């Protein structure tokens, strides 16, 4: 009940505009007037941007050069997705919003990414598992979204899917390598599962803007994707000699703007330049 309560409170905030007046720091975005479509595009964009930012933290710190390059390539792909989505959101929102104002000038409560993508990198096992959970989800989501009635969303999904397939394969192979590797790597995967599993439930919970759009055939029936997602996870975990998590408690809130304590730190890093040197460009 508590988790439901949290997510509904978040939804109520966005809907009524109460309690978020003081944090709306961006003159080009009026949350009170945001349509479900804008919120949905922002949700998809924020997922991609925040995971891109997290993966980019590995730049120059990867375990070996090739994998440093791999994780930052994935980061770049996600950033590309985010740009396409923010450009579209800016167009739908109007009101002088731009891809930059949407990416750099919103405050924490205005970001609608799921909690999974903002979780810390931890060790390589945690980063790999986070990417794996997300890539399985994103591949399934974009398979459906590429046939969407909304032509621009469909185009972005079809284009991104080509790259997501590489992310999925790469992260699956690493889950197996680590899970079925040494005692040390296996233990680290177990710790990563404990840490990240409670953030997977939110991927399949419909936010209010998604439920609304679902009636028009624009968002995706997420609960229906869960079966295929679980099947893929179990298939790879079996090969990786990893046990299925028994934990059923799921965190939620991110899709409605209620984030974990990590989000503020990510944004501090991400937005630093635009906040200190407003409108800087190079």
């Amino acid at each position, binding site marked *: 009940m508590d988790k439901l309560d949290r997510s509904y409170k978040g939804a109520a905030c966005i809907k009524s505009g109460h309690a978020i007046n003081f944090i709306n720091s961006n003159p080009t975005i009026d949350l009170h007037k945001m349509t479900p479509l804008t919120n949905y595009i922002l949700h998809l964009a924020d997922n991609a941007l925040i995971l891109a930012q997290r993966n980019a933290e590995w730049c120059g710190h990867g375990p070996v050069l*090739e*994998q440093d*390059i*791999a994780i930052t*390539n*994935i980061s*770049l*792909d*996600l*950033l*590309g*997705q985010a*740009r*396409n989505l923010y450009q579209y959101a800016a167009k739908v929102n109007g009101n002088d919003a731009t891809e930059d104002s949407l990416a750099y000038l919103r405050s924490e409560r205005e970001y609608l990414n799921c909690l999974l993508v903002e979780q810390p990198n931890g060790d390589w096992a945690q980063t790999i598992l986070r990417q794996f959970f997300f890539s399985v989800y994103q*591949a399934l989501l974009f398979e459906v979204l590429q046939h969407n009635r909304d*032509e*621009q969303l*469909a*185009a*972005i999904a*079809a*284009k*991104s899917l*080509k*790259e997501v*397939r*590489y992310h*999925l*394969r*790469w992260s*699956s*192979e690493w889950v*197996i390598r680590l899970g079925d590797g040494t005692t040390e790597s296996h233990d680290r995967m177990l710790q990563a599962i404990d840490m990240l599993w409670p953030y997977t439930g939110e991927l399949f919970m419909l936010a209010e803007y998604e439920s609304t759009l679902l009636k028009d055939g624009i968002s995706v029936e997420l609960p229906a994707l869960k079966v295929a997602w679980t099947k893929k996870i179990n298939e*790879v975990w079996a*090969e990786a000699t990893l046990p299925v998590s028994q934990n059923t408690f799921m965190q939620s809130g991110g899709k409605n703007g209620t984030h974990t304590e990590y989000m503020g730190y990510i944004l501090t890093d991400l937005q630093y330049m635009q906040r200190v040197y407003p409108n800087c460009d190079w």
Partner: protein
Amino acid sequence: MNLCMNNRDMITVKNIKAILEVVTDPEIPVLTVSDLGIIREIKVNGEEVEIIITPTYTGCPAMDMIAMNIRLTLAEHGYKNGKITTVLSPAWTTDWMSEAGKAKLKTYGIAPPNPKQVVCDTKHFAEQESIQCPHCNSYHTRLISQFGSTACKALYQCNDCREPFDYFKCH
């Protein structure tokens, strides 16, 4: 091509096509924008010129520079108000790369995308397509990493001549 385009405009389209032959990919300078299949359409209406382009990889940072170079090249030739429009659909594919472009890639030391378009098999450790070494032409090569020095490339090594090389992956 626009059917109501008049003769003069059609000649302009032809000219612009020729002019843009000098615009190359800043990361793989042997390839021109037409080799890559980035230019989808050229629309001319009197003085108005619009170039429709499509991005290669979603996050490719070269795209902004390519768009800028197209605009500059047009301006150099007197088309001051060239408009660049980016479209995402249909999504770019390595199938649109010209045969000349593929040959240039190979000479440059990058294995061109396989002629038979294969999308990435998401199944872990699935059998890889076999890639020809651009240096010694051996097919006896192995994948080092699916991700390479730019978004469009994977890293391979030849088991015969031992040279590492980039492969322009199918997209």
